[in-house]
């Protein structure tokens, strides 16, 4: 053991000559100088870009304001590009800055002002910039391009966006899915049929926001989602039903209480709270004893706050004898709430 260590130490000694350290010090010092150079370069570059952007924003400002305020009767003609802006549009940096400004404004504006921005985007053929990004191999360019096309309501690109809804990169497929719904509302959700990946909670929130002002068009389509083999699609359908208080799906939601996925059952319990009815409360009460997850049992008890009536009180009072304190407590909270309501 000692001889092995001695050999190792001897070998190490060969590599620790003072000259070696001189070389290392020289190398590290050079790297530090290079890093300081890089810091200064990045700082100056950032400052320059910010300055140029601010300058361009200032130049575009009055022009864009006048476009936003244009009346519908002036829509037939093209927007006039001021002479000081015309040469800028040949510069890629300025076109990108204008595109970013249009996207920012469009995100905040709707109605006629929004339409004017889309018209300008089309007239300046800025969709080519967005499409170029979408066709780029880098995921972040792809996602950005799709996002811009969706914000600017470019329906002509739907066929190109559709296959990207199953892209291997989560950001690309999320932007593609959002774009499809943004452009086609419920019709855009046809990608659910071939969905290879789960939707995240974030996807759900974004998609639901886009559909918030659009009532469910047909029961068949929602039923097909409720029967999807992808649990995240079923969860989405349940959230949609809850958000739109679509009571016509009550039986289908109750059926989802026996779904094998915990997340789906959890969502079904929450959904029944948003479409309260006597059968919903009875279903929750009946399901309670067969529920294998304690967390979901507690969710049922708190869910009864929304769906329950005085009819649930005997069941809840019985639970006051349960050995588990959290169950007793959850039941007590619901009892207090139902009694207050009564």
């Amino acid at each position, binding site marked *: 053991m*000692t001889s092995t*260590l001695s050999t190792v130490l001897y070998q190490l000694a060969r590599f620790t000559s*003072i000259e070696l350290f001189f070389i290392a010090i020289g190398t590290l010092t050079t790297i*530090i100088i290079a890093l300081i150079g890089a*810091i200064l370069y990045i700082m100056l570059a950032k400052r320059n870009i910010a300055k140029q952007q601010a300058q361009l924003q200032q130049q575009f400002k009055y022009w864009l304001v006048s476009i936003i305020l244009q009346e519908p009767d002036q829509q037939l003609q093209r927007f006039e590009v001021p002479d000081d802006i015309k040469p800028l549009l040949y510069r890629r940096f300025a076109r990108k800055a204008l595109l970013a400004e249009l996207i920012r404004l469009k995100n905040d504006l709707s109605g006629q002002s929004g339409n004017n921005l889309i018209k300008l985007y089309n007239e300046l053929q800025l969709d080519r910039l967005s499409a170029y990004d979408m066709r780029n191999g880098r995921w*972040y360019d792809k*996602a950005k391009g799709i996002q811009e096309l969706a914000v600017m309501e470019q329906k002509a690109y739907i066929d190109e966006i559709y296959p990207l809804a199953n892209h291997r990169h*989560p950001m690309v497929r999320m932007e593609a899915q959002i774009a499809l719904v943004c452009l086609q509302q419920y019709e855009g959700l046809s990608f659910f049929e071939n969905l290879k990946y789960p939707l*995240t909670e974030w996807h759900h929130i974004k998609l639901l926001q886009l559909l918030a002002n659009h009532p469910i068009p047909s029961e068949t389509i929602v039923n097909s989602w409720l029967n999807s083999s992808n649990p995240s699609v079923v969860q989405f359908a349940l959230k949609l039903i809850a*958000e739109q208080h679509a009571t016509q799906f009550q039986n289908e939601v109750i059926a989802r209480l026996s779904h094998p996925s915990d997340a789906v059952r959890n969502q079904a319990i929450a959904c029944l709270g948003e479409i309260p009815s006597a059968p919903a409360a009875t279903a929750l009460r009946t399901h309670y004893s067969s529920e294998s997850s304690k967390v979901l049992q507690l969710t049922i008890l708190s869910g009864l706050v929304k769906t329950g009536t005085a009819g649930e009180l005997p069941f809840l009072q019985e639970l006051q004898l349960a050995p588990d304190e959290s169950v007793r407590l959850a039941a007590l909270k619901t009892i207090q709430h139902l009694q207050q309501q009564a």
Partner: protein
Amino acid sequence: MAFLYNLFHYGLLVYAVSMLSCYIFLGTLAIVEAVKYLRRSRLTNYNLLASSPFAPSVSILAPAYNEGANIIENVRSLLSIYYNNLELIVINDGSKDDSMAKLIHAYQLEPVQLNYHQQLATKKVKSVYKSTNPVYSKLLVIDKENGGKADALNSGINLASNQYLVCIDVDCILEQDALLKLLKPFMDQTDNKVIATGGVVRIANSCVFKNGKLIDVNLPKDFLPRVQALEYIRAFLLGRMAWSNLNGLLLISGAFGAFDRQVAIDAGGYDHNTVGEDMELVVRMRRYMADRKIPYKVAFIPDPLCWTEAPASYKILGRQRNRWMRGTIETLSMHRKLFLNPKYGVLGMMSYPYWLFYELLAPIIEFTGFVIFLILAFMGYINWPFFAVLTAFILIFGWLFSTFAILMEVATFNQYKKRGELRKLILTAIVEPFLFHPFVVWSSIKGIWDLLRKKNSWGEMTRQGFNTAATEAPKA
């Protein structure tokens, strides 16, 4: 004798080289992770989460002990957080000052009978208060006997009813979208359950605040806070970013972190027996998941989310570093089963050994090395030219790492962009090894000594208070 001398000599060399290699490796990983995050973040509209009815429900836990001077403003700042599905639980941990009276008066609090479920053992809760003013309907205040920060947080967890817990130091100032960014990773989970997320904590000294909001970022004017600003950049932008890439984070700052409530409870909540309760909880939650073979992730957000006041005197700084060292030793000792245990994957094979060798042992080795150096120097055994070159090498490597951290800061979040701030930061990096680092090593050694003497005090942290722009006077 020669063999022992060589063993010591080259043993230290191997240790130093392996440590430096780790730093280079972590620096590289940090770049990859930061770039990935920034690209994702640019495409994300976080505001969506604030108003959605499907956003996760959150309980913010803010323990307070003798915070009477600023408690009203601090709570007001927390109440102004832009998020719908939220409850704020302030825990008065047996303050000896007028914190509770001020809270009752300013927020029109009244005791309420709540169904308090004692899932985690805590000191006695005297009362739970709720505001009679609907404006403050999100606020709950627990008044309890003093039991320390971990105890206070546990009583908050017992009362919390929401899905996620956000634990925060009551005197921290949050960025407007801090909560949204902190919660986003929970929304992105698919196969791996996200059990906790942490954000970057930045130094608030010399920054300007108005109505509980940060309005002007400045590099701290005093040396100690400034050097800590640099240290935090290094720790958060390089260290934690890299560990996040590996899913090997062991620590989420106690100043601002989010946890899955059920996992935190199932894992047993905060441990009262350590002063490093924040690190200990993360390690225990990770262990809990790994033992049950549930795939999980601890996420990290590199955005500056939370601003806190750093100690501005050596006395307070010494107490803080003393406590941090004791916390680290206690946590690593409690979870020694993880050490090189392949069952725990990255946690056992990488994170734990790294913390043991390069966080816990580093000050001990450094201090021992220094003592031995003094003895050898006294006995005339030092090869001075070699010593000079070796010292220069170590110093230059340290500067390289700090310069790299500054580069990362400039290339990413670039908080210190005023004239001269960058120059000051680089100068601070140059003097840090002489004026700051030895003190930190000394404080850590004192921490180890205190632990051996079973001295378990938290160490009082006196704060100077934030710079505030002209604003209305406090209400209470």
